[in-house]
């Protein structure tokens, strides 16, 4: 077990370096010139402007030199200056990362609560209408493009029926709370502004549901399968024979054993959540790193693209590591390999 952990953790820096290298190579070896997006088409014909821009953005010199330059800067927390926002990429990411993390956390909560609820409901009412309806609801969630379900829900629940606020993290008239964690729900509480906190929660609900709905299907499938497995075990029969109430049997005896696989599957869904967050942020005008990445990719803002990819890759690697370790703890069979 411990050698497995050591091996997995030791591989992390190498994988991160590989992510950095691959991103660097893709963004430097491509046909499209970043100069177009820095200068605009008109200034491209002016050789002195081109030379100055190349100098300024470090696009001169051999590739290997540029690479070392980039690595060196990165280790000092400098991801370069965004071509578009003219800010340091690390600063931009620092401002935007909490918004994405808050959205993803809320989505995971939605997915876990919804998935477990549906899974339990469906497992205890096998092959009844509830079973089919629950499974279908979960399946639709993972088959709908998040950018479409977001659009539809925003149109009906927010614009037509005014049940939820519109896009953004807060109403357009509200000022953001003083920044402690960057999570608006927490920061508003720390500032003691409860009505603003409720506003932040309400703004989170729709995007978090849209994003979490996709993972709900996976979670409910796992919960259902392990519940059905557990409910057929002898100790459940014993518990029932002893006269334990059905409610207690399901929620205490059976669900406890179905929880761990449900939680680990959330870890495996992090990739889906990252993909979904990029798209959901577009629909809900959510100022996170997803929408930052889209803008960067559209305008060939290389420092920003690399910054997002490296941060995203790192987050993904850490999540995979934690999940695999949790999985190894939960399932002794994994430890052998």
């Amino acid at each position, binding site marked *: 077990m411990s050698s497995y952990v050591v091996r997995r953790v030791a591989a992390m820096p190498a994988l991160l370096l590989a992510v950095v290298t691959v*991103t660097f190579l893709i963004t430097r070896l491509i046909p499209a010139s970043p100069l177009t997006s820095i200068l605009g088409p008109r200034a491209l014909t002016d050789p002195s402007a081109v030379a100055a821009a190349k100098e300024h953005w470090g696009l001169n010199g051999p590739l290997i030199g540029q690479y070392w330059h980039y690595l060196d800067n990165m280790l000092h927390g400098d991801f370069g200056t965004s071509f578009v926002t003219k800010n340091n990429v690390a600063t931009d990411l620092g401002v935007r990362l909490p918004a994405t993390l808050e959205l993803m956390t809320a989505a995971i909560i939605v997915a876990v609560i919804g998935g477990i609820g549906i899974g339990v409901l469906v497992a205890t009412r096998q092959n009844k209408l509830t079973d089919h309806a629950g499974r279908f609801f979960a399946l639709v969630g993972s088959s709908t*493009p998040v950018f479409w379900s977001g659009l*539809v829900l925003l149109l009906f629940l927010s614009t037509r029926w005014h049940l939820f606020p519109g896009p953004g993290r807060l109403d357009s008239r509200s000022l953001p709370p003083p920044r402690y964690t960057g999570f608006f729900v927490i920061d508003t509480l720390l500032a003691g502004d409860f009505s603003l906190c409720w506003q932040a929660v309400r703004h989170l609900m729709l995007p978090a549901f849209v994003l979490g709905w996709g993972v709900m299907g996976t979670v409910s499938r796992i919960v259902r399968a392990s519940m059905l497995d557990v409910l057929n075990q002898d100790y459940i029969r014993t518990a029932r024979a002893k006269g334990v109430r059905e409610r207690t049997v399901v929620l205490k005896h059976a669900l406890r054993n179905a929880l761990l696989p449900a939680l680990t599957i959330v870890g495996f869904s992090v990739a*889906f959540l990252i*993909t979904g967050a*990029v*798209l959901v942020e577009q629909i809900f005008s959510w100022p996170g790193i997803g929408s930052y990445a889209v803008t960067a990719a559209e305008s060939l803002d290389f420092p920003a693209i690399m910054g997002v990819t490296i941060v*995203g890759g790192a987050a*993904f690697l850490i999540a995979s590591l934690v999940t695999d370790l949790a999985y190894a703890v939960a399932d002794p069979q994994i430890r052998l390999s």
Partner: protein
Amino acid sequence: MTAVDLTLSERRARPAGRANWLTVPVILGLIVCAGWLVIALTIPLWSPYDPLATSGLPLLPPGAQHLLGTDALGRDVLARTLYGARASLPLAFAVIAGGVTIGCLLGGLAGFFGGWPDGILMRLTDVTLAFPAILLAMVMTAALGPGLFHAGIAMVIVWWPIYARLLRAQILSVKEQAHVEAAVAAGVGRSRLMRVHILPLAITPVLVNATMDLGQVVLLAAGLSFIGLGANPPTPEWGLMINDGTIHFYQWWVALGPGLAILSLVLAFNFVGDGVRDLLDVRTPGRSP
């Protein structure tokens, strides 16, 4: 545990046999898939409207003339939705075919020969899988320039390592089975061993996963088009059309057709994937990039 207990628990562990794989959802899924395939192949023959040409006033709500209304340029939304299948279906099949081919070739070689080629391949897949799919696809399409073909290349790069690892793992486990040992003892040559004794058993889970991934490819391709890195306007493509729908937010019908199209096709792929899994009776842990 007695013998009777053993058979009981074995039966419990494998409830779905070959007999009952053709369930109602699987049949529905097959019908919907076949329907989209027929539409994609024949739509130019019977579509009353040109998907690229103005055929009415802009942003007309659904009515008798235009069943799903018209978009901002007065193009028929239904015609564009149906034509959209001609972008999404071939792309999905091409990406999966490309991913499976490259993945199986490299994974097969690595699994069969082991040694340093295996080591190199595994590190390569490690690196590719370290990227969240959308970020890798975004970097690639940003670099190559937007377009469905480039998005397709990016998605093949995202998907091949999954199949390579799956096939490699399968080959490693099939290699240990008794019938392979027997074949080696009987003097079967290496290429025949691979072709006849190992590959047919090892490839099944790859094919099952490939079927299940078709829907994921459709979703990711539409997502890339939605954020402007996939199909170029004025191509009738579902993600691009939903993006139009965000601009004309109050004209809900602009995004309705493409949204339902993606939903129905992905649902159908998922149902068929479940059926194929039950038919071939393999158990693979749920995993998607």
